[in-house]
C-alpha cells in the first residue's frame, strides 16, 4: 500500500522535474528593488484551488488568520490584522504578489506579515508549533509549489 503510494508520488515528481526548471531555493530567490520576484519558483503553473486550501489551513499559510477574503467566506474566522485581499489582483502584479508571499518585508519594510519562503535569519526558530528547537535544515513554511499555488489563487481575486 505505502509502496504503491510512494511509487505513484515518485512518478509525479519525475514528471514535474522533467517538464520544469530546477526549483529555486529560498536563499537563491532574486528580488528587485521593490520586492518583486519575476521568476516562478518552479516553472510549473500554480493551481489556484490548491492555493486556496493552503491559505485556509492553519499549519500552512493560515492567511485568513490576518486577512479577510470574500471569496473564502466558507472558511470561518477571518482576522483583520492585515488588509482585505479582495481585489489584490487589480492592485498588484503576479511578480509583486510572489514577492509579498515569499518575504513581505521586501515590499513592506518591517511588516508583521511572516515570510513564507525563507529559511534563515530567525531568532529561536522552532520545529513547527511544537515549541521545540528547529532542525538544522529548517524547511520554509510553504514549499515552492505551494507559493506558486497561493500566487495563482491571489491572481483570481479581482474586484467584482
Amino acid at each position, binding site marked *: 500500500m505505502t509502496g504503491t503510494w510512494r511509487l505513484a508520488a515518485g512518478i509525479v515528481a519525475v514528471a514535474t522535474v522533467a517538464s520544469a526548471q530546477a526549483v529555486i531555493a529560498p536563499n537563491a530567490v532574486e528580488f528587485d528593488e*521593490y520586492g518583486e520576484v519575476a521568476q516562478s519558483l518552479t516553472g510549473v503553473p500554480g493551481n489556484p484551488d490548491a492555493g486556496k486550501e493552503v491559505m485556509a489551513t492553519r499549519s500552512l499559510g*493560515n492567511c*485568513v*488568520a*490576518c486577512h479577510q477574503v470574500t471569496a473564502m467566506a466558507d472558511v*470561518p*474566522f*477571518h*482576522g*483583520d*490584522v492585515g*488588509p*482585505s485581499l479582495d481585489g489584490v489582483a487589480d*492592485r*498588484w502584479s503576479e511578480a509583486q504578489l510572489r514577492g509579498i508571499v515569499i518575504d513581505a518585508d521586501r515590499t513592506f519594510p518591517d511588516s*508583521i506579515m*511572516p*515570510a513564507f519562503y525563507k529559511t534563515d535569519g*530567525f*531568532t*529561536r*526558530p*522552532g*520545529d*513547527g*508549533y*511544537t*515549541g*521545540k*528547537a*528547529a532542525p538544522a535544515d*529548517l524547511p520554509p*513554511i510553504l514549499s515552492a509549489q505551494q507559493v506558486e499555488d497561493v500566487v495563482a489563487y491571489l491572481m483570481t481575486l479581482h474586484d467584482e
Partner: protein
Amino acid sequence: MRQAKRLVGGGAVLVLLLAGAALADPDHDELIVNGEIEMIVRAPAPPHVENLDEIISGWSFRTDETQALQMDDFDNPGMLGVERALVMFDTPMGTAGQACSSCHETPEALRGVRATYPKWDEERQTVQTVEMQVNECLTERMGAEPLGYDSTEMVDMSALIASVSRGMVVDVAIDGPAQSTWEKGREMYYTRFGQLELACANCHEDNAGRMIRADHLSQGQINGFPAYRLNNAALISVHNRFRGCIRDTRAETFEVGSPEFVALELYVASRGNGLTVEGPSVRN
C-alpha cells in the same frame, strides 16, 4: 504606474485597518466582582510604557458571556482552585511540621503580595515571582519538597494569593536592583521570535483590538492571572501563557520558571501598573 499602484494599495491598507479596529474594539463595561470589588479595567499608561496611551485589562476584550463568569465567585470556575489551595494553606507539609498558616495565619495576611510581584529579593539577590517565593517557603522554612512551577497545586496557591489582593492597584517596582531584569524583559517583548518573526508587541501593542483568526487580541496584560481558560478547563499560570504565545510564533520556547520568563513577567506586569489585580480571571 508602479508608484501609483503602490499608493492605491497603501491607501486601501490604511482604510481597512482603521475600519477593522473600530469593529472589534474592547468594550466599556465596568467590572465589579461580587457586587463589591471595583476593578480598574482602563487606566492611563504608566510613563515607562512608551507606545500606549491607555492600558486595558484583558477582561474588556472578552464577550459578555465570558465577562459575566468573572463577576461572581459562584460562577468563576477558577475559585475552585482557590478553595483547594485554602485546604493546602492549613495543611502541615514537610519535616518542620508547619503549614503556610503557621506563619501567615490567614491568606488575607498575604494581601498586597500579588500587586507588587515579581519583586527584588535582597537575600537571594534576584527578582522573585510569587511561585518562587512559595517554593522558598516550602523548601527553606517548612522542610518540604518544592512544587512544580506549573503544577496544579502551585497554580491553585497562586490563585489564592491573587484572590486576596483583588481590587488592589498593580504597582510593580522597575527601578533599583530590579532594573536590569526589567530591561531584559523589555528587550524580549520587542524581539521577533520564531519562524513567523512575531514579537509580543506585534500582537498585543500594534494590533490589540483586532481579530487574529477566532481570537480578539488584547493587550496581553497579566493582572488577571492566574486565568481560568475555558478552552483548557484549567487555571493557567503567567509562564504557561507566555510559553503558548511564543510557541505560536513557530519558535523554540523558554521553560516555565526560566530566568527569561521571570524577566518577561516583571516587564509585562509593569505594563499593567495602574490596573487592578483580578486573578483568578476567566478567559476563553
